[in-house]
């Protein structure tokens, strides 16, 4: 007998299709058959092909750009942040920009705070600060997750170095960490209702935030 080309979902002898949830066995009965929809294969991008295509084009254009330095996906976002930080610094308004940023994010952070309060689990707060927000994970490309602690490599070094060479910025990564990143994280955490310690600047650029 010829083997089935693709394992059937719910067939214990043939495993489960990669994108279908395994149908649970109930009281020793054979697992339920998949719905017609579950029986198909789906990328998750059906109906959003153009959006996916546009994202891919942007990604490929950015990663292929290696002059005068290898561009990363965060290039434009880094420059937008640096532009604003440098402007605020030049006008003696960096603490006000940080306060404005924290206030802008307060509606979202307070919502995360409700989840922390409801569950009693401050780890939700760290997830809200780091893994869940694209403003973090699209900006910071090197990072690690451990319970109660997040570690990352400051993302500004290459763009800052290139920009400094042509006089665009006089900021340093340490200055950004101490006057922008750390107070923002502390402000966000306060709105979430968790206490965190942000590491001081380290020459390696590797920094951390942990639940206090």
């Amino acid at each position, binding site marked *: 007998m010829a083997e089935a080309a693709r394992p059937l979902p719910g067939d214990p002898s043939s495993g489960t299709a990669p994108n279908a949830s395994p149908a649970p066995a109930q009281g020793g009965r054979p697992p339920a058959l998949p719905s017609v929809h579950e029986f198909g294969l789906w990328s*998750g*991008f059906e109906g*959003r092909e153009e*959006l*996916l295509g*546009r*994202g*891919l084009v*942007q*990604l490929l*254009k*950015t*990663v*292929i*750009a*290696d002059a005068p330095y*290898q*561009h*990363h*996906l965060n*290039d*434009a*976002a880094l*420059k*937008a*942040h640096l*532009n*604003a930080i*440098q*402007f*605020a610094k*030049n*006008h003696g*308004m960096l603490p*006000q*920009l940080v306060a*404005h*940023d924290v206030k*802008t*994010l307060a*509606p*979202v952070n307070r919502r995360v705070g409700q989840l922390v309060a409801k569950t009693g689990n401050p780890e939700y707060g760290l997830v809200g600060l780091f893994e*869940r927000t*694209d*403003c973090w*994970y*699209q*900006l910071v*490309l090197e990072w690690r997750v451990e319970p109660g602690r997040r570690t990352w490599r400051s993302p500004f070094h290459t763009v800052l170095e290139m920009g400094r060479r*042509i*006089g*665009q*910025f006089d900021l340093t990564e340490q200055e950004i960490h101490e006057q922008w990143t750390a107070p923002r994280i502390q402000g966000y955490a306060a709105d979430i209702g968790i206490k965190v310690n942000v590491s001081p600047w380290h020459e390696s650029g590797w920094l951390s935030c942990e639940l206090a």
Partner: protein
Amino acid sequence: MNAQTATNAAKPVVAEVPPHAPKPGAPAGTAGMLNQYKTLSGFEGREAELGLSMSILLKMLGNHAGYAHEMNDPLVKAHLLAIQFAKNNGTLAQYIAHDIKTMEPINLRMKQIIEKTGMKEIAMVALFDRTACHYALALTSNGDGRVRTWKDPFGWVLTQCRKIGQFDLTAQEIHETWTIPRLTGYGASMGVTLKVSPWQEDGTITCELVD
């Protein structure tokens, strides 16, 4: 097996194996010729970078929390944050001047290239096709020659964020008080005159080289 089949077996057909078109910047000589026979993606040696970027892209597009996030979401928000801050403090004009000055080292270099080649369209390539700061923001950017068109990238995020009181800006306000003066300022640095379309309700923006 007849006689004809036997002859065919003895003399196999030689397939066409044409070289690929040479890639710009490819090495000359033997190495370049060999490379023309390779099928290259252009990302050789950058697999980790590509994989990491793909992972971020899939995360971004899989995020429906509150609203469907597009790839430019963090960049749009970074700009909105700064524009709203400048507006609140009455320093939007200074912020735009700061931005134009920050971009001057690059735009002045482009001006030199334009003067050397006499090709003013290079200004359009520099502003729209070459810089991630534009094409990462305006995901619908298209056009060629002297005209580029894109859809306002701020309206979608603004609509969502205004609901929770994060911004009071409008897409039209951003177009008129930030996008237009920045683009015309960049054009002036490059020694060209640009005309940006007035705000249209469907968000379509056009920028044209007019000299």
